[in-house]
Structure formats: C-alpha cells, structure tokens
C-alpha cells in the first residue's frame, strides 16, 4: 500500500483553484450514465448526494434511520465557522486556516485545511439561499458568536440547533432531487460490506432493516459519509445508532484507517447520573462564551455553589489561560476538568463535575438576553437534571464527542481503495489531533457541497469504470460473507445481552484510552479486548430472526465491529509516543501539564492497513509538512 496524498503543487492559496482546473470533467450528458452510491445522509452525505444529483449523476442514497432527516448531524448545537469577517474583527481565510491547524495541534494536512477555510464562506451563502434561518441582528444581517480556540467571532448559528437547520437544508435539497428522480433513497438500510471488483470500489451489501433482506447495490463509485466511531466508548454524545460498521468493513476490504486514537472528549456535557445511563448529552460549547468554569478552591467542599464565596472559587481556566480564558480549545478544557476532579475538587455526585456558572452574565446582560441566546440549552439541562441553571450553576463533565481519526483519504477525498470516497467525520483529514468547535459542520458541508462533486468527476473520467453485474463472484462473496456473519451472531445463543458487552468495552476504553493514556494502561486494554471479543462471540444472546426488524441483531453487528476497532485504537495510541491534541499520553507532558508533542518522530499521519484475519495491522506513515503554520508548542495562555 502506498499513500499518495495528491496535494497539488503551487502556493497554498492557489492549490485548490489550480486543481479544479486540472481535474478532468465528465460531460453533462454523460453524467447521467454514472451511478454513485452515497452511504449516510448527514451533513456530508446529504449535501454530497443532493449536489451530485443536481450535477446529473444518478445517486443511490442509504441511511439506517427511517428518514434521511434524522442523521446525527441534526444534534449539532452551537454553530458553523466561516471566514466571512462580517464582524470586522480581523478574520480571514488565512486566520481560519491558521487557527484550525494550530487547534489540531499540528497533526492535519495544511493543504486540506486551507481549502476548507476557503470554502467556508461559500457554505454560509449556500445555506442562506436554501432558507436556513440563521440568527440575524436587527438590521437583518447575519449574526456571529465566538467559539473555543479562536479570538474572532466567526461562528454562524441558528439558536442552539444549527446542525438541525443545516441538515434540514441538505435534506430538503435531497428531497427535491428524490422527487425529480435523481436520487433513489433507501432508508432503514444498513451497509454491511463493501464490494471491491478489480481493485475498485463498485458497490455495497446492505441489510433491509424491515424485512431482513440482504441486497447488493452496484455503482461506478462509492461514497461513505457514515460519521464517527465515538460509540466505541459506549457512553458518548453520539446517537445510539451511530456506528463504525461501514468504515470498518471498508478497512477490512483494504482502506487504510488513519489516526484512530484521535478522539475528542468534549468538555461541556451533563455528568453521568447512574449505571443506567444510555448516552451523554452535550451542552454546546457556545455556553462558554458567557458561562464561567470553576470549582471550589478547597478539596471536598460540599457547600451548595451559591454559598461558596467568590474568593473560595477557582476559575481555573481564566487563571491558567488569561488570554483565551473559558474559550480554550476542547482538549485543553477537558483535561483541566479532569485534573481538578482528580485533585478532589470536583462537584456533584461522585465528584466528577465542574461548575459552568452564568451568574455574572445574567447580572451583566439580564436573564432575558441569556434566555434568548441559550434558552433551549438551559431547558434541556433542566429537563435532564431537574436543576434550574438560571439559579444554580450547571454541572458539566467531559464526554466522548467526536473522532478526528477515520479512513485515510487523499486530497480528492478518496481512500486507498480507488473509487471509495470518504467524507465528513468518517474521514481523517482536516482536524488533526483536535477539532475546534463549529468546525465539524463546516467540514461536512465543505466535503459534500464543494469538494466531492468536483473530485468524483475526476475519478470517473480517469478510471472509466466498466459495467459490472450482480452475478460477479466478488458480489456473491460479499453477500455470503454478510449472511454468514448474521447467522453466526444469531446462532451463538449465549447468556449475555449485546448492551452488557458494549458497556464493558466502553468502560475499558474510557479507563485506558480516554482523556489520559499510558503505555501500561493501553497494554492492559490490548490484553483484555481480545478476551472480551472472544467472550462476545461465545456468549452473546441475540434473540429473534434475520427476516424481520431485529434491533438486537443490528446492535450485535455494530458492537462486534467496535470490539475489533477498539483494539486498533489502542494500538495506535500505544505507538504514538507523544501527546497531541485529544491524544494525551501521561508520559509526555510539559512541566505545566500541557500536551508535549514530538515533532521529530511523530509529525505524520498513522495509516493502518488491515493485515488479514488474526494478523497485526500494518502501519504506513504520511509525513506532514508545515510550510505555512510553523510548528510550535500550542499556547493559549
């Protein structure tokens, strides 16, 4: 396997423009002769399917939800970044590029990030034209707020439901194309394998989740926009259905998996309330615009927060990082929360929480302004915790939120399997080792609206995929592999539920591969994961049959894949003997406890190739060059 990043030559400002000119085109009349499969209907998959259909391609779209509108992008709250500089505060494409590379702790590809920053401005325009009701000021112009890791206001938002509104924009564009016949929609279909013919990705195998039918679908190219794998930790802010199966199946068919250990732990989530917990709920980072994070100065101070006087509170982010204060990037905020809780100064049940306090903002701006800005988030908090955040500070704690790692892609968003393109959270390319707030929506839509529709044409024009049929041996092999796996899961007939295995795996990952990692802990995890996996396949209990709607069977297949992915994550975390962004190895830190990179040895993308059943994966390295943003210790002080 050879990693060819295909970064265009020339100055960074011109790379994308030059590349767009150099790429081959598919004649408009010929586009309708080409079929493209898009798996996933979130911001990336939905925008890609709609845009490619508008261009004239015949698109087949798949999602496991009952409607494309329910993909988990819908839950993104805070906003979307764009270098519009509408606030006249010194923003520019270059600054967004710079902030993103620095925020990613110098582990992303400069050329990709620059393109992302360039395209960001078009995304806002596109979404406004679709009717996304972004927040406006009294003159009718677009409003902005600030997010972590930036000192300018460049985040566009629609209350605390920005992801919902952007997704509905893409979904409506999709429905328009579905009505026109450009997109064939397959809801309640789960991709269970990738079909590779003569070295090219040519189709997928799906399970119809209502009837259980195993089906093959063929096309000239396959696009995965299937999101991240945070649910490997069981508890995360992801939707219950979010899973790694599509990208994991692709990995096992030859797509390299890049930087699997880069996971983002989001600092502002509602703390765990008990062992019944099924998922964690995020409180948007935008709250850190007005909320102040603190814990008591004294250990074990269990007075109610309102009775702790000002001089006995430690606003630790403001104290340690005076220039960014509460708006430090997510990895820094999360690690600091863990640190104060480890010191015994955490608040709430079990001492795993810190306060996010709006008292001062309410005094300064009035309750009404705070209600307008964050009303729905405050309500959600109250509904879950039964506490009123207008009166008592919120309690928050970090939780798994996003995965920067994903399938390796080149500048054209194509994986190491020709024809297999990967977009959005499912790929690895733009966020390095830590994603900045409001950048996930930006990347998903950049990939889907403005990058893939160009690069897919270049692939089709060059690769000229030949017609294939359903009776090709590769199709039959993939279909029988899926059927065999399904019957194996049903045949175990053991004693433990899928969820009990998933919880155990998640706890193991959280303990040994969570916010802080050590070589010793990772080795322990690497010993225990295969044992748990073996037990799963020996003792899991999956009731029901494969010819009906069977949610236990769906979960079992996903957890089986998480069990394999977990091992790769730990392996990657163990091999990366440095700390960077969300990957914090306790052995590698500065005297102040900040992440200590080792650029001489680890300024590369770790791309893992599947080695075959029972064999270790093979590591490939894509060196990262920093021509524009010079490598430096990140400082938010």
């Amino acid at each position, binding site marked *: 396997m050879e990693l060819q990043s295909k970064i265009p030559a020339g100055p960074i400002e011109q790379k994308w423009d030059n590349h767009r000119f150099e790429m081959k085109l598919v004649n408009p009349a010929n586009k309708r002769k080409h079929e493209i499969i898009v798996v996933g209907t979130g911001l990336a998959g939905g925008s890609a399917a709609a845009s490619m259909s*508008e261009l004239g391609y015949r698109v087949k779209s798949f999602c496991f939800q009952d409607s494309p509108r329910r993909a988990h992008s819908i839950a993104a709250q805070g906003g979307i970044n764009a270098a519009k500089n509408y606030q006249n505060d010194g923003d520019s494409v270059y600054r967004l590029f710079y902030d993103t590379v620095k925020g990613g702790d110098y582990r992303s590809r400069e050329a990709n990030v620059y393109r992302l920053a360039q395209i960001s401005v078009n995304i806002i325009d596109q979404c406004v034209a679709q009717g996304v009701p972004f927040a406006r000021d009294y003159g009718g112009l677009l409003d902005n707020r600030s997010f972590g890791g930036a000192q300018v206001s460049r985040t566009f938002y629609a209350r605390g439901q920005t992801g919902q509104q952007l997704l509905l924009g893409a979904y409506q564009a999709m429905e328009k194309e579905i009505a026109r016949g450009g997109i064939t929609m397959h809801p309640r279909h789960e991709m269970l394998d990738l079909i590779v013919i003569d070295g090219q990705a040519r189709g997928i195998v799906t399970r119809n989740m209502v009837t259980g039918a195993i089906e093959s679908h063929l096309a000239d190219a396959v696009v995965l926009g299937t999101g991240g794998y945070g649910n490997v930790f069981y508890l995360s802010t992801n939707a219950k259905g979010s899973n790694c199966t599509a990208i994991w199946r692709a990995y096992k068919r030859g797509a390299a998996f890049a930087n699997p250990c880069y996971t983002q732990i989001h600092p502002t989530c509602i703390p765990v309330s008990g062992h019944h917990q099924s998922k964690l709920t995020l409180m948007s980072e935008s709250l850190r615009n007005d909320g102040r994070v603190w814990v008591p100065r004294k250990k074990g101070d269990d007075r109610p927060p309102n009775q702790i006087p000002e001089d006995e509170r430690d606003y630790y982010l403001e104290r340690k990082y005076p220039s960014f204060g509460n708006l430090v990037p997510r990895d820094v905020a999360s690690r600091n929360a863990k640190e104060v809780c480890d010191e015994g100064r955490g608040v709430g049940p079990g001492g795993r929480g810190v306060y996010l306090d709006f008292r001062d903002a309410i005094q300064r701006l009035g309750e009404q302004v705070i209600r307008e800005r964050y009303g729905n988030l405050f309500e959600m908090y109250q509904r879950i915790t039964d506490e009123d955040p207008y009166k008592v500070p919120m309690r928050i704690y970090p939780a798994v939120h996003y995965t920067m790692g994903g399938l390796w892609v080149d500048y054209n968003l194509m994986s190491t399997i020709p024809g297999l393109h990967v977009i959005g959270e499912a790929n690895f390319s733009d966020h390095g080792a830590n994603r900045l707030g409001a950048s996930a929506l930006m990347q998903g839509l950049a990939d889907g609206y403005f990058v893939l529709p160009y690069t897919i044409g270049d692939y089709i024009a060059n690769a000229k995929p030949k017609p294939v049929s359903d009776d090709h041996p590769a199709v039959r092999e993939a279909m029988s592999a899926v059927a065999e796996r399904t019957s194996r899961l049903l045949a175990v007939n053991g004693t433990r539920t899928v969820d009990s295995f998933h919880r155990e795996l998640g706890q193991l990952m959280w303990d040994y591969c969570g916010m802080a990692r050590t070589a010793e802990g990772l080795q322990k995890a690497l010993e225990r994961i295969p044992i748990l996996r073996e037990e799963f396949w020996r003792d899991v209990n999956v009731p029901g049959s494969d010819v009906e709607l069977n949610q236990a069977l769906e979960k079992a297949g996903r957890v089986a894949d998480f069990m394999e992915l977990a091992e790769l994550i730990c392996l990657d975390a163990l091999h990366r003997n440095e700390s960077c962004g969300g990957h914090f190895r306790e052995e590698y830190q500065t005297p102040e406890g900040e992440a200590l990179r080792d650029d001489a040895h680890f300024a590369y993308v770790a791309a893992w190739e599947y080695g075959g059943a029972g064999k270790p994966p093979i590591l490939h390295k894509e060196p990262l060059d920093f021509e524009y943003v010079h490598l430096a210790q990140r400082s938010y002080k």
Partner: protein
Amino acid sequence: MQLTLQVWRQPGPRAEGKFETYTATDISPDMSFLEMLDVVNEGLIEAGSQPIAFDHDCREGICGSCSMMINGVAHGPVKGTAACQLHMRSFRDGDTIVIEPWRSRAFPVIKDLVVDRSAFDRIIAAGGYITAPTGSAPDGNAILVPKQNADRAMDAAQCIGCGACVAACPNGSASLFTASKISHLALLPQGQPERDSRVQAMVRQMDIEGFGSCTWYGECQEACPKEISIDRIAQMNHDFLVSSMRARPRSAP
C-alpha cells in the same frame, strides 16, 4: 420505583397486535423514559423473549425518531418534551403506564412501537424546499431578513418531524407538520418565488398520503415537543387560499 407497563406488541405490519403486561423494577427517577425501556428490554432478552422494538436515536429530543403514545398522550405527560427527554421523575412509584405506537392511517405499524413515517418525506419532496442548486447562491448578507421574521421562521423550522401532531389529532391530520415547513419558508425572502406552488403541492401530497383534514381541535400544538403553534396552520390556509385565487401556478404535468 416499580411500574407496570402495558405495551403494544405487534410482530409485523400485517400481524395482529395486542397489549402485553410487564413489570419494570429498580427504576430510578433520573432515568429517561427510553432508559427505563432499555432496562425492561434487557430483562426480556435475558428471559429469552423478544425485546420491545421502538425507534430512537439521538436521545436529545432533536432527531425526531422516538414516537410513542404514553398513557394516551403523544410523547407523554410533560409539555414540550419528546419521549427521549421525558424522565421517570414524572411518574410515581406503582404507576401503570400504557405504551402504544402512533395510531394513524398514514403511519402503518412496522413492529411494536415502530411505525412508517415516510409519508412525511414525501410531503417535503412535494415542495418543502427552496430550489437553490449548490453553487448558485449570492453572498449570505446580500439577502436581508428582518430579525423578527428570522426568529419566527426559526420557531417553525424547529419541527423535528416526529409525527406527534398526527398521532394526537383525532382526524390524523398532518397540518401542523406541513404548515411548519410552509410557514418557515414563506417568512423568508428566499422562499417567495415558489411560495404559491409550494403550498399547493404540499397540501395536495398531504391529502394523497391519507392524512385527515384540520378541524381546529388544537391537539397538535399541545403534543408538539417543539411547541409549534397552531397559528402556522392559519398561515398555511391563508397561503393556500391566496395561491388558489391567483393565476394557477404552473404545476408539474
């Protein structure tokens, strides 16, 4: 807490369904309603039975997947709350809770509490969008939207497409769902060119799907987890009437 559940069980779309009674024990008031069902399902699997099938995904009240009648009320007793955000502290120890799927001709049951809501997608496909192909947009600030209109559009655009409005309506009308999208787009300058054809096409599709008519019971706004106001339906009716009287929009053949 200990609760008695009466749950609608139906093995498949054409199979006959019936209520089954289950006991939920060791329920914490901090659990969400769906976490309570998770506990019951774990018990069912361990006892060798089939778990209760229900749609759910984000569990944050935004994806709109969850869809169940709880004691005859769509999404249960707390106003402005989807079932996934309902917590067990809203119930008392010893309560009996009746759980059913959405009941509507246009939402056929697939299994247990899972229904087919694809009719909603087809209503959107009929015209619930602005035709703005990728790449054709002017600068975002070139289109001015008065703040109050943007806010009102957002109030309507919040609809999560769960179908509670239909389930709550004695007529099984999808008017609140349809009107929310019509109103959202009609309040924005970008939505004007297709305003007439949109309302005509969406209302027609609503009828084709077999949803009932709105006769102003007002149950929909009570059930709506996003508390979208029935005023939106008045706007839809207004737009429908006006567009019917104007030169008939050129409709698709």
